[in-house]
């Protein structure tokens, strides 16, 4: 079982995706890699446009929470081979990527299911907060 956890300052770049795929080329037991990329939407709120989201995280709590999520996922999906999670902190502009999850499994069905479960658990349990920054400079916390 290969697992890793990273908080990344600023937006995630497609380099991360390429690097993750390349790093798995040597392994031949996986038949399916599934990705989730979370992108900052340019929502309209009361006539204002979201220009960016500022993320903050409880660094010291992120790793144990991620480990607990991974344990739960690996327990539920026996076909799973690896699970990688990256989340942004700091400013991420609309259209940029703020979260990347990569699941590798022997076959596609568990790869898809584990990915969806992982996204839901992260939204529920990861100690991360976001503040919407509007194009007029005002902001609000997302609760």
């Amino acid at each position, binding site marked *: 079982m290969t697992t890793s956890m990273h908080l990344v300052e600023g937006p995630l770049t497609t380099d991360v995706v390429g690097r993750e795929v390349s790093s798995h080329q040597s392994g031949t037991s996986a038949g399916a890699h599934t990705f989730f990329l979370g992108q900052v939407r340019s929502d309209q709120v009361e006539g204002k446009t979201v220009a960016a989201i500022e993320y903050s995280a409880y660094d010291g*709590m992120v790793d144990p929470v991620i480990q607990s999520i991974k344990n739960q996922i690996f327990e539920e999906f026996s076909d799973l081979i690896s699970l990688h999670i990256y989340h942004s902190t700091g400013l991420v502009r609309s259209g940029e990527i703020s979260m990347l999850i990569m699941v590798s499994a022997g076959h596609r069905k568990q790869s898809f299911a584990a990915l969806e479960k992982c*996204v839901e658990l992260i939204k529920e349990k990861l100690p991360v*907060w*976001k503040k919407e920054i509007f194009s007029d400079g005002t902001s609000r916390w997302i609760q």
Partner: protein
Amino acid sequence: MPKINLIYFGSVTDVTGCPAEPFDAPATLNELNELLHLRYPALLVVRYRLSVNRQLTTENMKLTEGDEIALLPPFAGG
């Protein structure tokens, strides 16, 4: 009186005006919460949970020197 470390996140920081501060610990977590409400009355209308040494808790417990207590508004990752 033992010293503890308080850490604030998200909308709680708008109330406290700072991300963290040392605090003279009362005996228990419940007493701490009451003291925080006296110090920052606006916390009464903010939704948050408490963690002790990076573990979420809903139960009262004794506080000891060096404990790290965090006030965590609802999570919003992704």
